[in-house]
């Protein structure tokens, strides 16, 4: 085993840190930015900044690090992960989780050459922002039961139905959607197809949903005879389930939980150092969380290492997500506890420590174990695929 980074990897991390240090507008440093909420923050400027920084990241070639060399990548999940870890630690925007994290691997695996040529460059350059239409109100963990329909009509598929919890739908340029093309298929997941969707297509209406942290990332989206050209069908008709599932393990590995959690923890540690002595139980708790963050980091590099070796992390990928995000939930809760009474003060209060962000980060973290496949699903993956327990 080897827990060290190569000099090249260390140099890359240093380059990222210098980039962040140079590019981060001072007024945003301590502000509401967050790896998760660039689309939902209270400020339009935040999204503009996200777009601007995406272009800068793209110009560095950093949005396609994991891609094969023939598509302009460096074929390294490790570099992509180092990038994500650093950006999330510094709460630096610009990394589109839907384009870079989800769609690109789907296209690379299931798209045809034309689709790759058309859509990958926009992602790599940070010019096109994506959103994903998977969940519906009654189809979350049980995704295969989704009801949105797509019906063939000449050179088009016509989509009708509604999707829910779509992050950034109100901001994105393009979306990818999974819809039912064969309502008779048994089992039901064999009747689904996967499409790329220009968000300017007529018939799409978007209703924002604010989350409990007060951010408006989510949307409910209605499709009324939305016409998608057939060239935007990915992976073939009724093969949509396999497009999605084929990269699930990859996607589960893409959330940089360590960077997010460790930064939140460091905020609490810094506060605690200034205000010590803190309650001894909290001191103990913070020490536990230091260990939990380190384990989050290690568990994640294991999955990344597997991907770069050409192995498929299945339970290992699920573990990065469920463990890392639960750790972040524990961290954000503990940050508030360390702040005590001050932990209920929000942005705008002159008495609020940590720029008043502690409560909203705590509230926001509740969503982490619900979105992108709940913790329950991840645990079942670990039990069934990792340990071979029966379905």
């Amino acid at each position: 085993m080897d827990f060290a980074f190569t000099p090249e990897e260390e140099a890359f991390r240093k380059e990222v840190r210098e980039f962040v240090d140079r590019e981060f507008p001072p007024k945003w440093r301590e502000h509401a930015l967050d790896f998760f909420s660039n689309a939902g923050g209270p400020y339009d400027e935040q999204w503009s900044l996200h777009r601007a920084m995406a272009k800068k990241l793209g110009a560095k070639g950093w949005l396609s690090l994991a891609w094969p060399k023939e598509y302009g990548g460096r074929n390294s999940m490790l570099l992509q992960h180092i990038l994500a870890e650093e950006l999330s630690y510094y709460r630096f925007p610009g990394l589109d989780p839907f384009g870079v994290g989800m769609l690109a691997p789907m296209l690379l695996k299931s798209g045809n050459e034309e689709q790759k040529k058309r859509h990958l460059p926009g992602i790599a350059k940070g010019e096109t922002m994506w959103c994903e239409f998977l969940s519906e109100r009654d189809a979350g963990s049980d995704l295969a039961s989704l009801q949105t329909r797509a019906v063939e009509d000449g050179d088009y598929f016509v989509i009708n139905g509604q999707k829910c919890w779509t992050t950034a739908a109100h901001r994105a340029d393009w979306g990818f959607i999974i819809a039912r093309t064969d309502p008779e298929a048994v089992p039901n997941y064999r009747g689904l197809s996967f499409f790329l969707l220009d968000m300017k297509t007529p018939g799409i209406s978007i209703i924002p949903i604010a989350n409990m942290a007060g951010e408006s990332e989510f949307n409910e989206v209605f499709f009324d005879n939305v016409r998608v050209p057939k060239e935007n069908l990915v992976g073939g008709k009724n093969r949509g389930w396999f497009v999605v599932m084929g990269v699930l393990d990859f996607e589960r590995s893409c959330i940089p939980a360590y960077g997010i959690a460790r930064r939140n923890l460091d905020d609490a540690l810094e506060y605690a150092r200034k205000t010590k002595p803190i309650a001894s139980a909290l001191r103990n708790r913070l020490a536990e969380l230091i260990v939990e963050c380190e384990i989050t980091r290690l568990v994640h590099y294991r999955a990344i290492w597997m991907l770069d070796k050409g192995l498929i992390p299945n339970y290992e990928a699920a573990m990065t997500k469920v463990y890392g995000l639960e750790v972040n939930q524990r961290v954000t809760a503990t940050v508030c506890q360390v702040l005590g009474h001050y932990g209920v003060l929000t942005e705008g209060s002159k008495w609020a420590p940590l720029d008043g962000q502690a409560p909203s980060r705590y509230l926001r973290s509740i969503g982490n174990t619900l979105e992108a496949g709940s913790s329950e699903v991840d645990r079942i993956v670990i039990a069934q695929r990792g340990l071979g327990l029966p379905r």
Partner: protein
Amino acid sequence: MDFSLTEEQEMLRKAARDFLATECPKKLVREMAKDERGYPLELWQKLSEVGWLGLIIPEEYGGSGASFFDLVVLLEEMGRACLPGPFFSTVVLGGVTILETGSDEQKQELLPKLAQGKLLLTLALTEPSARYSADGIQTKAVQENGSFLIQGTKLFVPDAHVSDYLICAARTKETGIPEEGVTLFLVDAKSPGINCTLLETVVGDKQCEVTFDNVKVPRQNILGKLNEGWSVLEKVLEKATVAQCAEMVGGAKQVLEMTVDYAKQRVVFGHPIGSFEAIQFNCADMLIDIDGCSFITYEAAWRLSEGLPATQEVAMAKAWASEKFRRVATISHQIHGAIGFCEDHDLPLYFKRAKTWEVNFGDANFHLDKIATMAGI
């Protein structure tokens, strides 16, 4: 032993639940979080009319003469309903303090008005150190020409922005022993030198920063005896802590009911999620947490109501409610999934209150430390 409410208490509970269902819908709760006053004046008037502002005030002072335990029954319902407004500060923090230590003259003057909804009170206790121990009181009051001049900053004072009087705990003597030399002053909120600023909080409850810049208070506005305020505060804090627990118990019960209803009705993979073993275990744990919090809260409330020593029971109740309401609300979110994560769902109202109420009157660590000290370890 008797684990049932009296018939009157059952009626009070039902009346409160019905009243609050009508008068305090969640829409109002959400509006009031953004409202500067924080409650509708009409609602306050109605609370007076049904007799709840004067619930524990003796009949001779215009109240109903009910017990502290009766008040706990009512507060549990208010916690269930997330009632906004200064009920807690006026009735518990203000009313209890005056009942504990006011002179007959002060009671005659203040309590009838309080019961009639014409007087709002609060307790200005905590300061930037945010501590509930005697050494947290650093605000000073110095005597000058038969009056006192108060100087200092109080923080996290609930509803000070609407209160007519602030009961301010200030240090009138330095003896080196923090419990000595604290005096309670009844301060007219309109006195010159008082500056009140609303704090931005996660719940949108109305906590304030109140600065006292040489605020002049006449000597007759001392509540209780000069320099002997801390022992009164200890009693008031015990009742306030249990009152807070009662709200938390009510909130937690409501959360569990919402969760069970949702689990029965939400269908995934062809079955209601409430039939899944893991969800059943979660819900069972929630009920265990809630029954535990209820009984320990009721025991503490009963002891206080009976005038028995209750220091340990109060600490137990708050240590437990602080942890368990938060845990119940967190599990409920996990069961509700995305729908409960939306701002306009009711669940976040409780999740946020669980956080806020956790720290009021001391968090779990504060109270566990007390319990350990009492156990001699």
